[in-house]
């Protein structure tokens, strides 16, 4: 990962609209069928503990659309402040909230309001008072600098045309000594620039 990553030449606002529309569908019509796996079968594929998934509200599980398991890189500690970038329906947010306990806090940031509503509803259903859901973008995080211990994210950065901007924001909001645990997509073969710049290929 030493190669400089350039931002793709797509209209960022148009891309955001397309992705919001796609993930609004994942939130409100999870059985619609998408070009990626979703829900409980995906969670099992990615190695989530079955008991953890059973603990979660079905409304959160059914709209899960991650690409890995951030907690496979390490369990969170009690009392930590966690940011979940692109939190979606909230399964990682809710699992993180349980791990950090009542002395910790999880801030879920997503650009799709329907997903944030699912996160809030899930936290309420589980009696979690340490979850806060905020509307925002990965490249412009609505958090103060050096304010969180851990950043988690799952399948989101690949949807952002300027990945460097996202990682700079992750660096900004982490406290010194803080860490990130991210799951995402990696392509091992070079994607042609014209494909990178084709907005219709981003959200499928």
């Amino acid at each position: 990962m030493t190669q400089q990553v350039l931002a793709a030449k797509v209209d960022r606002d148009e891309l955001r609209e397309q992705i919001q529309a796609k993930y609004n569908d994942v939130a409100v019509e999870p059985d619609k069928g998408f070009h990626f796996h979703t829900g409980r079968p995906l969670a099992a594929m990615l190695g989530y503990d079955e008991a953890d998934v059973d603990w979660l509200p079905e409304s959160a599980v059914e709209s899960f659309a991650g690409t890995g398991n951030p907690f496979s890189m390490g369990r969170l500690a009690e009392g930590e402040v966690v940011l979940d970038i692109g939190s979606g329906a909230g399964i990682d947010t809710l699992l993180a909230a349980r791990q950090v306990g009542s002395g910790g806090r999880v801030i879920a940031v997503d650009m799709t309001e329907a997903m944030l509503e699912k996160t809030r509803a899930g936290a309420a259903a589980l009696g979690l008072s340490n979850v806060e859901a905020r509307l925002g973008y990965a490249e412009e995080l609505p958090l103060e600098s050096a304010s969180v211990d851990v950043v988690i994210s799952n399948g989101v950065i690949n949807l952002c045309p300027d990945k460097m901007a996202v990682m700079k924001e992750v660096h900004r909001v982490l406290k010194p000594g803080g860490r990130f645990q991210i799951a995402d997509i990696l392509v091992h073969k070079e994607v042609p620039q014209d494909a990178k710049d084709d907005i219709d290929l981003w959200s499928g």
Partner: protein
Amino acid sequence: MLDHTGFAEIRWGHQIDVFSGSKHESDAHEFDTRGVTFSGVRP
């Protein structure tokens, strides 16, 4: 990319063929696309 943002202790987890059996399986295989987990520390 991570080298340019000032993170240290970069670790890579296992990779998963997350598009296997999905509608985008052939496109994903064309570019050898994998789900991956990674972590790092802000010094």
